């Protein structure tokens, strides 16, 4: 496990270091999608280099990308200082869309080009090499030092824009966007757009939710980035999931947990201050949700009802109650047959794999027999699944009236009473 994950983990650490800090600025300025726009502008630069006859991985292509990024940075710095009647986010969105479309037009002529350009934006954190991590660490170290040196004017522009506007700090703004563009383009190449965006925005958001001081936000963001990187990488290994997507979803889950915890704390606070009546809003929402699920079950018994599936799988008696005396043994037998069949199928497939890999010898005839046996076993398992599904549908037809309607009625009545009480008080 370690041999696959330690280089990605180091890469995540490097990303956390610089992106959390830049994310604070991005969030304070309200230019959330500027990273996507700059990455796309760099990709357009590479597409133009490709059109001019340079290979995509060449040094010339890199300088093209850098030049385009700097031009983009200049544009963003300018569009901020002028008091324009449109929000800067509009300009960022337009730059993103137009440069993405222009890149498509530029590489349209060459069938080999478009696939490679696409790969510039879909890096994969899992396959990052130690050399790439070193280069990034050096580059980001230098940029970090630069930002430490110019922290005063840049922080002022981000967190106190009115004062900054009076002192004409436009050049510092350009330096900010230029270095930011350099960081984002380099990161996107190895980690992909989604991951870079998450490292930039989520830690800064959580930091802003929890504390007001810049140092505090930075500390929270770094701790979060470290924890989520570790959790995401281990989770991706343990649950056998794609790494980048797992880290991004871990970020999202963590943010949701923090938001829920903050909401719960606010609720507890208001219960203490104003008594149980402040829970009424929550009660109405829960009742309405219960009523709605009941109504859906009554109206569309054959649709997907995941909550009921989940209940039935953890407590099978919930379904058994709704089956007739004749159906119950069928359900039990099919379940057992399905478990047996699935195990057998797994064993046979493992055997087939061994034959393919050459770790088990088998004659041609045996191999063919194995293939046919697998196919017929598969059909039987599919048949058992179908029986269970039919039984479930029959149960649902009965649950519709005995479960769906009562739930709908209870939920509706609860919501009605709670809202009425509120009006009365």
């Amino acid at each position, binding site marked *: *496990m370690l*041999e*696959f*994950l330690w280089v*990605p983990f180091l890469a995540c650490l490097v990303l956390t270091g610089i992106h959390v800090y830049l994310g604070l600025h991005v969030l304070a300025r309200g230019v959330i999608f500027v990273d996507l726009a700059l990455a796309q502008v760099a990709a357009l630069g590479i597409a133009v280099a490709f059109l001019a006859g340079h290979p995509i991985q060449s040094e010339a292509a890199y300088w093209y990308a850098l030049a385009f990024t700097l031009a983009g940075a200049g544009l963003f710095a300018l569009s901020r200082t002028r008091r324009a009647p449109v929000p800067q986010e509009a300009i960022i969105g337009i730059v993103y869309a137009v440069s993405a479309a222009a890149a498509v037009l530029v590489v349209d002529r060459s*069938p*080999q080009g*478009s*696939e490679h350009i696409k*790969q510039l934006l*879909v*890096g*994969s954190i*899992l*396959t*990052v*090499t130690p050399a790439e991590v070193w280069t990034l660490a050096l580059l980001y170290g230098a940029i970090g030092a630069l930002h430490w040196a110019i922290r005063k004017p840049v922080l002022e522009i981000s967190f106190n824009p009115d004062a900054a506007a009076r002192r004409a700090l436009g050049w510092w703004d350009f330096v900010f966007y230029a270095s930011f563009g350099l960081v984002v383009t380099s990161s996107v190449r*190895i980690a992909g757009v989604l991951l870079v965006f998450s490292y930039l925005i989520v830690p800064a958001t959580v930091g802003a939710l929890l504390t007001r001081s810049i140092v505090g936000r930075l500390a929270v963001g770094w701790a979060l980035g470290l924890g989520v990187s570790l959790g995401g*990488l281990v989770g*991706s*290994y*343990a*649950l*056998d*999931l*794609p*790494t*980048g*997507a797992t880290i991004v979803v871990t970020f999202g889950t963590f943010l949701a947990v923090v938001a829920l915890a903050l909401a719960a704390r606010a609720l507890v606070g208001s219960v203490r201050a104003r008594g149980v009546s402040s829970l009424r809003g929550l009660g109405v929402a829960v009742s309405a949700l219960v009523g709605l699920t009941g109504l859906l079950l009554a109206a569309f018994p054959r649709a997907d009802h995941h909550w009921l599936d989940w209940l039935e799988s953890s407590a099978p008696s919930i379904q058994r109650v709704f089956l007739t005396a004749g159906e119950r043994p069928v359900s039990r037998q099919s379940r057992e047959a399905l478990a047996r069949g699935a195990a057998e199928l797994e064993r046979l*497939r493992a055997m087939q*794999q061994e034959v*393919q*890999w*050459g*770790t088990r010898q088998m004659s041609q005839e045996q191999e063919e027999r194995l293939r046919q046996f697998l*196919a017929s076993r*598969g*059909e039987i*398992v*599919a048949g058992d*699944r179908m029986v269970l599904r039919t039984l479930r549908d029959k149960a649902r037809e009965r649950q519709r009236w005995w479960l769906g309607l009562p739930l709908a009625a209870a939920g509706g009545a609860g919501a009605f009473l709670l809202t009425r009480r509120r009006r009365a008080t």
Partner: protein
Amino acid sequence: MLGALALVLLAAAPAWGSQEGGPASLSQQARGPLSVVTTSTDLKALVEEVGSDRVAVESLAPALHEPHAVEVKPGQLRRLKEAQLLVRIGLDHEPWLARVLRSVNDPRFGPGSPHYLDTSKAIELLQAETPRVRADRGVHVHGFGNPHYWLDPVNARLVTGAIADALSRLAPGNREVFAANRARFLERLDASVKRWTEAMAPYRGTRAVVVHESWPYFARRFGLIIVAAVEPTPGVPPSPASLAALTAKMRETGVKLLIAEPSSSAALVNQVATRSGARSVTLIPSVGGDPEAGDYLALFDVNVKRLTRALAEAR
């Protein structure tokens, strides 16, 4: 604009009159080459072999593309509307074609019409287990069998047969020309297949890992055994656990060959190759996917050359 409209009408007119290949198709000859639209560059190459100068062929999709991201241009739509014949790979290889056909909205391009040719009908498909059975093995892409059948050169015999029949139905006057072209092509094909088979003979039974499941037909023809795919679902990167298991297994069982494609992620290919000790080789899946692979036979020349070089070095 009026000119374009007239062209459309002109091109469509004989089609209405010639459902059974009647006299209207004879007038086709007088008007120059039969216009054919294919969905892939490989089919374009094969139609050109059979039709030579009697056909004008265009492929809707470029050589290397993602099947879900093909964007057809307005000019291509017009040429499809004017075309006498649409040739497609079939199965679920062209998910984008349904929308294109809906916007062209021409009843000629449907199953059963002489203007529509689905070459998969001529082929014995691989990996065509029933969808129901495969459904519980997880997501899989090729529900109707693996569609990369043009990568077995012997299948070109069946495909060109179907193409020659379709062209002859639309232009009966050229039937002999098409048959003679096809015979010449098959002669070259047979000689080449013999040469390729000989070149690959020392490596029969070699086990290989592929990045995408595009090579079962190619492998069966030349005696390679494909044991696993790095990215079973295109576009979804493999998880670290499956990558670790795969490379460990490759090292353990001595699998020395990794077959990639130009669109495969270079970082992923490098990583699997380094960790497993296998040699990676980039094969071209379609005519035009590489400057060297200019026509159908050249496609296999390039692939066999790259493969034998890699196999010789991997030994």
